[in-house]
């Protein structure tokens, strides 16, 4: 299937889901599916670096939170325009602010992408495990910075008021539906990007790094450059997933934005689905995401995190190639 056809199909499926939810008028369906879509973006983003290149990023939560907090910073900036600038500039800025969410998403992607690039530049020249450790530490430090930064609320957190409705070309759109549509679009973009990468020269380059970095280097593959591209892309997508989050949650505090569940889920989902293709994170995110939504409502959120952890450990031991790998193996056996 060509890329254009693929993305069109993905959009069509998304529109169907949306029409379904809209038709039943269940706001909860939008809330729940927003979370799942957000995890699709995070898992796909993680997989670009982790699955394709074989470099583990434990700091998904940090990149996600960076996206969310860059939005908060811009929203807060809007409130301070009159006190910070003289009248002329303030008037001009009021025309631009408050920024629409798509702009916030681009901004979040930029911030997270730059941080990803910086981290990668410092640590990717060394052994692979150093990068993993550095990302783990990055989460702790960024959280420290945010907690100490009063402008975005510090440890108290920040309130972001979500409008009831959005006027869009004369039509009133329910705001949560608008957020859902944006996240749906992001998921489609992320999946399409992952699929394009997989089939391009870039993807083959990534695969050589995953299989044997030394051999790849010896064959003239520019490994550092490819790894930096992967980290930047991966970080940027995570930032994108985080940027609309303040509007979704309404009240953002460091411990929720940097929650460990983002780091765990964005690793567990591709691992359980399968890391070698774009299908894996998608399957993993839908399965784990809906299971968690269900378990959070029926059992408790701590138990559902325990289940995710146990599944992660179980899958990496028993089914190293995830669900997709299991299916492929079965198909291969049947053919023989």
């Amino acid at each position, binding site marked *: 299937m060509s890329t254009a056809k693929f993305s069109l199909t993905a959009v069509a499926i998304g529109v169907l889901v949306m029409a379904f939810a809209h038709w039943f008028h269940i706001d909860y369906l939008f809330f729940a599916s927003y979370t799942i879509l957000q995890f699709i973006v995070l898992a796909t983003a993680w997989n670009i670096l*982790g699955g394709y290149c*074989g470099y*583990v990023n*434990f700091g998904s939560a940090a990149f996600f939170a960076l996206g969310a907090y860059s939005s908060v910073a811009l929203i807060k900036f809007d409130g301070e325009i009159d006190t910070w600038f003289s009248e002329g500039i303030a008037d001009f800025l009021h025309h631009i602010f408050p920024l629409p969410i798509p702009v916030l998403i681009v901004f979040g992607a930029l911030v997270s992408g730059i941080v990803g690039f910086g981290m990668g530049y*410092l*640590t990717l020249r*060394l052994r*692979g*495990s*150093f990068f*993993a*450790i*550095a990302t*783990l*530490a*990055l989460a*702790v*430090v960024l*959280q*420290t*910075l945010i*907690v*100490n930064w009063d402008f975005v609320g510090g440890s108290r957190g920040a309130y972001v008021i979500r409008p009831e409705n959005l006027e869009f070309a004369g039509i009133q759109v329910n705001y949560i539906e608008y957020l859902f549509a944006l996240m749906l679009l992001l998921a489609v973009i992320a999946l399409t990007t992952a699929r394009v990468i997989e089939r391009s020269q870039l993807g083959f380059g990534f695969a050589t790094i*995953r299989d044997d970095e030394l051999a790849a280097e010896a064959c003239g593959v520019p490994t550092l450059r490819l790894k930096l591209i992967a980290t930047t892309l991966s970080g940027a997508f995570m930032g994108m997933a985080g940027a609309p989050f303040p509007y979704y949650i309404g009240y953002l505090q460091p411990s929720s934005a940097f929650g*460990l569940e983002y780091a*765990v889920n964005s*690793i*567990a989902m591709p*691992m359980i689905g399968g*890391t070698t293709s774009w299908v894996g994170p998608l399957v993993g995110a839908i399965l784990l995401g809906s299971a968690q939504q269900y378990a959070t409502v029926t059992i408790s959120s*701590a*138990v559902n*995190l*325990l289940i*995710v*952890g*146990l599944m*992660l*450990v179980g899958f*990496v*031991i028993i089914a*190293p190639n995830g669900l997709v790998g299991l299916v492929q193996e079965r198909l291969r056996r049947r053919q023989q």
Partner: protein
Amino acid sequence: MDISFDLLINAIVAGLLLGGFYAAVTAGVSISFGMLDIVNIAHPGFIILGSYIAYFVNINFGVDPILVSLIMLPVFFALGAFVYQVYYLSFEKRGQESLRGLAFFFGLLFVTEVSLILVFGVDYRYVEAAYIGPSIHIGLVDLPLRMLVPCVAALVLFSGIQLFITRTFTGRAIMAVSQDQLALQLMAVDPIRIKRIAFGISIATAAIAGALLIIIQPVEPSVGREYIGRIFAICVLGGLGSMPGTLIAAMLLGVVESLTATFYGPSWAPAVAFGFLLLTLAFRPAGLLGR
């Protein structure tokens, strides 16, 4: 800047005591990551497990936390040997340690943390012992026993490991396995057995480190995460596999963190370790006393 002299001296002494404790926390990772090349990011999870065992026995039976950890040593050793066996069979043997092995340890860390939350809740827990509370005064300097006792215990543990590694056959075999596994095999020593023992020891140190942790500060299940950055920062700064380097790096981090906490506020302290880690990785990846 106006820095009063006794505040400075006290901050440095407190940092050295803290550094001694950090050395105990890092000792295990210095063996597993530094010598065996196993990136055990679940180590803080085992430490917190040690803290909770010390807490549980201390509160119910009134046993001294350090004594509890000494009794728990064989159990933690067995646990470590078991974890290594699983790790070896599932990842190392198949050559998949870099991606799946890391995810495995991450999962372990997470499962330990969530299980502890389910059993004990998220409240801070603390132990009771005679040496928590009083302190010794020498001139300007205050030495709280709460910090002094863990520091001394940590130094004893650390010297014990150093002696074991440099003086005994098994210890030297551990050093050898970190240098050349094949050569060890040619000497008719099973490298997997040696690694299993080494990993067992590394987890066993977590029992002691855990008990020391809960003496120093109240513990809740997610405290371990703050230590991941510190542990690996110390390990990398000290030079992988170098025990003396680890000790120096731990003391250094302790002092810098203590100075930061005293002069800029304790909420900035966690960032120090990361700064250390990034600077080391950027300028001297081999660490202070690296190979």
